[in-house]
């Protein structure tokens, strides 16, 4: 109140600054709303033309005007979850090694390499996955598995190399540094008193991490995993290069060794071909779907955090 009455130079400066900050914050909200509305508007031809069949359809046939997005949606969700599933144990392993076992001299190089891994452009992962990893994984992993346990549909042949599972692996490698660097940060914040309490009862370092360190860092680790999941859901370039871009998975061939198409790879590889309004609209609706999946992940993540927060306070 007093601020309003006085008209000193400083108060005016403060007010100007305040409105600048408010408009910066509003810009974020506005951009998001504009983006969302643009996507809805762009998908209108598809929403009206394809109806709900868009979300449940399993065929994508632009020539005959059939646009079913279910395989792409499932591929995006499954590759991301698999990637995070592979990344979690590796990333936590790195973090535990770093905080508990690594000699002081090894710590700096290790952080540098983790950061470098996070900085590699995804197209490099893509080309590496396509030319180097795909043939290797085909010969040494997929083929032996197909011949031994191929009777289980999800491990069925033929082995293509480029596939859903290769995409998950490449995604996992891209997600590992994100989770690992956050987990290192979190685990090094475990109070020394708790660690020593566990050690003083005869625990090994490993037991101390599992029983005190990780539970203490649990919430942060969940946040890190969600961040990694968000990265995996949205990753485009590397996925497009290694996933095979076939609509086979999961309905024509449920094998994780089959090529597939994710939402992002579908959009990236077909946008230039989308000449009709409904074709373009269908791709934009795919983008809208991805945005909604990402938002839903975020909301679920906030829910988990809030819940664990409340539990911790109880």
């Amino acid at each position, binding site marked *: 109140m007093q601020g309003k009455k006085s008209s000193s130079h400083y108060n005016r400066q403060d007010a100007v600054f305040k409105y600048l900050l408010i408009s910066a914050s509003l810009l974020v909200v506005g951009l998001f709303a504009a983006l969302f509305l643009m996507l809805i508007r762009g998908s209108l031809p598809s929403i009206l033309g394809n109806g709900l069949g868009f979300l449940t359809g399993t065929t994508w046939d632009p020539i005959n005007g059939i646009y079913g997005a279910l395989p792409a949606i499932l591929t995006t969700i499954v590759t991301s979850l698999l990637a995070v599933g592979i990344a979690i144990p590796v990333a936590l392993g790195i973090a535990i090694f770093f905080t508990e076992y690594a000699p002081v001299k090894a710590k700096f190089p290790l952080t540098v390499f983790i950061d470098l891994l996070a900085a590699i452009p995804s197209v490099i992962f893509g080309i590496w996955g396509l030319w180097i990893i795909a043939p290797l994984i085909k010969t040494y992993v997929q083929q032996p598995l197909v011949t031994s346990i191929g009777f289980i549909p999800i491990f069925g042949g033929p082995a293509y190399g480029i596939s859903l599972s290769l995409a998950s692996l490449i995604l996992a490698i891209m997600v590992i540094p994100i989770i690992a660097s956050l987990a290192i940060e979190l685990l090094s914040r475990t109070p020394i008193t*708790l660690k*020593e*309490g566990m050690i003083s009862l*005869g*625990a090994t370092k490993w037991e101390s991490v599992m*029983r005190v360190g990780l539970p*203490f860092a649990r919430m942060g680790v969940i946040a890190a995993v969600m961040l990694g999941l968000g990265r995996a859901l949205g990753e485009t370039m590397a996925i497009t290069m290694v996933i095979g871009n076939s609509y086979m998975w999961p309905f024509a061939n449920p094998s994780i060794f089959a090529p597939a198409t994710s939402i992002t790879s579908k959009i990236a590889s077909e946008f230039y071909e989308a000449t009709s309004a409904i074709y373009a609209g269908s791709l934009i609706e795919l983008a809208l779907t991805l945005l909604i999946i990402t938002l839903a992940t975020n909301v679920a993540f906030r829910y988990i955090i809030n819940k664990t927060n409340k539990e911790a306070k109880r």
Partner: protein
Amino acid sequence: MDNCTYEKLDISGLDAWFGDKQALKGVSLRIKPKTVTAVIGPSGCGKSTFIRCINRMHELTPGNRVSGVVLLDGVDIYKSVDSMDVRRKVGMVFQKPNPFPNMSVSDNVVAGLKLIGAASKKELEAVAEENLKAVGLWKEVENDLKKSGASLSGGQQQRLCIARALAMRPEIILMDEPTSALDPASTAKIEDLVKTLKAETTVIIITHNVQQAARISDMTAFFYLGELIEYGETRTIFESPKSPLTERYITGRFG
């Protein structure tokens, strides 16, 4: 003091280093079973380092070193025993109560036993109850056994930590200024508890409070600059200290 002739702990020529800095210099002393030994001395005199050599916690920090002989019931804990086994036999209570916040009150008590495995859920519950009773906490937490260990008050937390150490049936319990973070009422409870503990086990307790040492201990060890200056029966130390340093410290003229 009873007429026990054998030694629970026999320490000779104990040296300890933090990197290049020597924190303990040739400490030798013997501790009889079922006694309370107070370790006193000004800050930085090596008290904590001394007790952390008895459960091999000192060596946890890279660069730290220990030399000398520590015999627990006649066995050299640095040569013949695995460090984890030493810590099961020598419990520790810390300056700041450190219950595990991710575990319930009863799980806190049996956290050490769970590491060994082997006990059934029922046995663990019984052990939790027995040790919570032993530290006088049972009546206070009987209905909150499933609550987090961190939900208790500071004094309760420290008694919970003592129960956690007791549950291992340790030969020795080391206490590193266990009451310095507590209010007077909680402190009194812990002091009473320490006096009853020696019926079962041997206690070595660091204290900054000289009166506390006089109240609860049978033996007192006075450390100064990493050396054991004087060690003997508490009454003797307080009534007629041999060293002028000891006298100056217990009369509050330094430290």
